[in-house]
């Protein structure tokens, strides 16, 4: 239950960080604002690390036991920012959530399967319902903005 709540709060954090970062990007540019975003993030991470004081074990042996590509999360993060900056302005705003979520769900289910979580029937039904709900609201947005294309 705690994890469900945390994942829900994460959604709030996405919106807040997106709004602030895009405001900053409009003022100083997308890559500049991303640099500041990661600098502030690194500073806060360092503070958290000190405050939480959880045994930070930086022995090279331990870092070496993990495949190198696991370290690329931060790189992928910047790739997402660059790609969104390029793609999102070129498609109608109301499509964005729908399309991005279709990608998240298909890749997410595949990655879950790959990391040992089976793709059960209920998970597939759930994913399908989420897309259905998004489509429904997408249709309402379309009617409201007077866009005819579906």
């Amino acid at each position, binding site marked *: 239950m705690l994890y469900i709540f945390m994942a829900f709060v994460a959604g709030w954090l996405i919106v807040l960080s997106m709004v*602030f970062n895009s405001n900053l990007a409009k003022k100083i540019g997308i*890559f500049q604002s991303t640099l500041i975003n990661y600098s502030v993030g690194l500073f806060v991470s360092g503070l958290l690390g000190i405050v939480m004081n959880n045994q930070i074990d930086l022995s090279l042996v331990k870092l070496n036991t993990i495949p190198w590509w696991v370290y690329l999360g*931060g790189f992928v993060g910047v790739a997402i920012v660059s790609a*969104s900056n390029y793609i999102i302005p070129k498609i109608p705003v109301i499509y964005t959530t729908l399309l991005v979520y*279709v990608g998240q769900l298909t*890749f997410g289910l595949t990655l879950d399967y790959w*990391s040992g979580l089976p793709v059960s029937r209920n998970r597939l039904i759930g*994913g399908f319902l989420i897309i259905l709900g998004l489509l429904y609201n997408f249709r309402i947005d379309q009617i409201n903005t007077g866009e005819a294309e579906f």
Partner: protein
Amino acid sequence: MFKFGAVLTGGLTAIMVTLNGILAGNIGDFIALIIIHIVGLITVGAIILFKHKKFNFNKEIPFYYFTGGAFGVFLVLFNNITFNAIGVSLTLALGLLGQSVAAIIIDHFGLIGIKASRFDKRKIVGFGIIFAGIVFMIIGS
């Protein structure tokens, strides 16, 4: 073509959450946060050097515009913890719901400098279906 690009962006998000989650599961939540931000910083720093981007701070920028990165840290932390507990697809599905609720409230009341636009009550049906989908996903995992 750009629509396919948007789908791929979503796929990249799932990949990122998985990579960061595996890293945190192996070396600990807080050291993972530091490494993730260092790697991101190196990447964007390289782009800025390569593209010769200039910094221009002459415009007046409200202080809170710089706080996005702080929210981002907790976003990554929460994603890493939930990834290791409930997997990536449920983490992202719940994130989507949280995101939608936050967006509705911010839009409806016109918070943090966003122009207010009233919530269309007909959309409750759509969110009901999305919520049912999340319940199915929780049952299924």
